[in-house]
């Protein structure tokens, strides 16, 4: 995994030599033309869901995959975005005495609210090394769900909020497509800048990165805030699309897991891994797990264990390596070569 990231990141940005971004642009254009073929509403909805999953995965990758700060509570920002839109569209009269906002006005605030929260939280937890951050985020998600449930006058509590329905599947399709293009494009751009290299340096050796003069706290906080901003926008969009939010559907645990697993499955810290992982994961869910819905979370948990153990470079790593790991290596109880012996 490490060797792969080092080689692909070291090449300088040259728009004409990089085929991957052009392939991506081509795919986006194709996707943009898709509604012209007059597809059914159900198909548009499926495409929208895939775009949302790709966007979430790509955003999680920005903090979890690039800096190695595993965020177990990234759904918090999704929730903040969703509730910002929900509250501003339905309750702003009672709470801030402002006129009711339209979706587009409220949407701007959903990203900003998530980003502000990320900055506050990041100031506390990102100065430390990874594991503290991970558990703090897990606790944040648990606490947030309870807080939303308790603040009934503002959030509607367990009863939830009904948003004004403006069901327009084509508009939703393009909006989610735009969000996905933005997130993945940003990821690609970051991966090819010094900022991205610094983030990877933090993941590989934080103390070393600090000694080389990288302001690690600033880099981590920037990545975290950007990621939270985009995730907040997705949450706001999702609330509008779903027209109903309550703590259970917003802080839906499989969604939290799926964005993490999509990244690990595709390849941590790569640009194209998370989209690939998200598509594969969505396919698995539709064709396989929907028949075993009662065991959906169990399937996701086991899949995470399996991928971490046997496919640490993700699908992208598998493709770059060109071969699968042989079975006898999989069954060995210990790592074949430990780190010390290597050095």
């Amino acid at each position, binding site marked *: 995994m490490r060797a792969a990231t080092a080689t692909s990141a070291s090449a300088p940005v040259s728009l004409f030599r990089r085929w991957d971004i052009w392939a991506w642009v081509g795919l986006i254009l194709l996707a943009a033309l898709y509604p012209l073929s007059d597809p059914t509403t159900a198909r548009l909805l499926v495409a929208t869901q895939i775009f949302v999953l790709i966007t979430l995965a790509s955003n999680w990758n920005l903090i979890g995959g690039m800096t*190695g700060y*595993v965020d*177990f509570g990234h759904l918090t920002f999704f929730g903040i975005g969703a509730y910002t839109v929900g509250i501003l569209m339905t309750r702003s009269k009672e709470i801030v005495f402002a006129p009711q906002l339209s979706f587009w006005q409220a949407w701007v605030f959903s990203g900003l609210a998530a980003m502000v929260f990320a900055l506050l939280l990041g100031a*506390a*937890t990102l*100065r*430390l*090394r*990874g*594991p*503290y951050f*991970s*558990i*703090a985020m*897990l*606790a*944040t998600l*648990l*606490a947030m769900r*309870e*807080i939303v449930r*308790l603040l009934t006058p503002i959030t509607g509590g367990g009863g939830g909020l009904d948003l004004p329905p403006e069901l327009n599947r084509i508009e939703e399709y393009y909006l989610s497509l735009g969000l996905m293009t933005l997130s993945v494009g940003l990821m690609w751009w970051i991966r090819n800048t010094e900022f991205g290299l610094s983030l990877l340096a933090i*993941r590989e050796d934080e103390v070393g990165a600090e000694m080389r003069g990288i302001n690690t706290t600033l880099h981590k906080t920037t990545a975290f805030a950007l990621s939270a901003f985009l995730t907040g926008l997705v949450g706001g969009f999702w609330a509008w699309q779903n027209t109903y939010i309550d703590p259970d559907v917003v802080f839906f645990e499989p969604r939290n*897991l799926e964005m*993490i697993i999509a990244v*690990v499955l595709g390849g*941590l810290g790569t640009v194209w891994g998370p989209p690939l992982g998200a598509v594969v994961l969505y396919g698995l869910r539709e064709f396989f797990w929907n028949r075993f819905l*009662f*065991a959906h*979370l*169990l399937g*996701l*948990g*086991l*899949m*995470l*264990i399996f991928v*971490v*153990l046997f496919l*640490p470079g993700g699908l992208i790593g598998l493709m770059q390596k060109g071969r699968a790991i042989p079975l006898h290596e999989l069954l060995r*109880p*210990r*790592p074949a070569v*430990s*780190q*010390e012996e290597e050095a």
Partner: protein
Amino acid sequence: MPFLQALLNGILVGGFYGFMVLGFSIIWGVMGIINLAHGEYVMMGAYFAWAMFRAFGIDPFVSALLVFPIMFVVGYVLQWLIINRVVERPHLISLLLNFGISISIANIYKLIYKADYRSVTVAYAGSFQLAGFTFPTVKTIIFFAALLIMVGLHLFLHRTRVGKSIRAAAQNKEAARIVGIDVHRVYAITAGICIGLTAVAGAMIAPIQPIFPFMGPIFTVRAFAITALGGLGRIPGALLGGLLLGIVETLLTIYVPGAGAKVGTAVSFIILVLVLITRPQGLLKGLRPVEGGA
């Protein structure tokens, strides 16, 4: 007097927390692994006690003794087969792996036992009066059992050969290897003991805690907050951190209206963030900077 009574309740709960956290803290201190599935092992112990009580009428404190060898084997095998593979990799990997394990365990239990709340009601569930204070019987027994086990664990780590090799592996892995300690085997034994003790803690609180498959994360977060307060792998530190958390939780439940039983997560979370901001090295300087194996 109500304040002193609340303080007493907090101390009783805190003693249990100090014991509950030990497995988490020792695994972290010895292997540098954050056991995110900690709460799930508490849950497994509690379910064991519930099942034994329901099927055979066995007392939860007897179940606590029975569950230790079973969960020792579970912990040993998990460590030997799975976690030893990632113990020398960066933290990113072991965190993700343990997250997967915790989700899987909770959902296996959900499939077997459904998401319903279970409870164990023992005959001696009441309380007794002593020196003007009310002592809840079960919590008092738990408190003293926890202290007893802590003393036992301390003796084990300091007086026995296996205990000494565990401490050696924690202090200097390379040197331990050189003097002939099989570090991976020591890790597996450590995981067995820690996960066994965690399940014992789970079985002991079965009479005073609703049991359901997703009760785990709160205990994991509590364990983390206590570790931040009391430091890593040190039994007195764990006890002190546990007492602190227990007292704060109990006082808040009593004096803040509407806080209720949900207060646990929020309190741990706030303590955690406060400690991390003001004293990143932990309250007792016990937290060392966590570095991955590589």
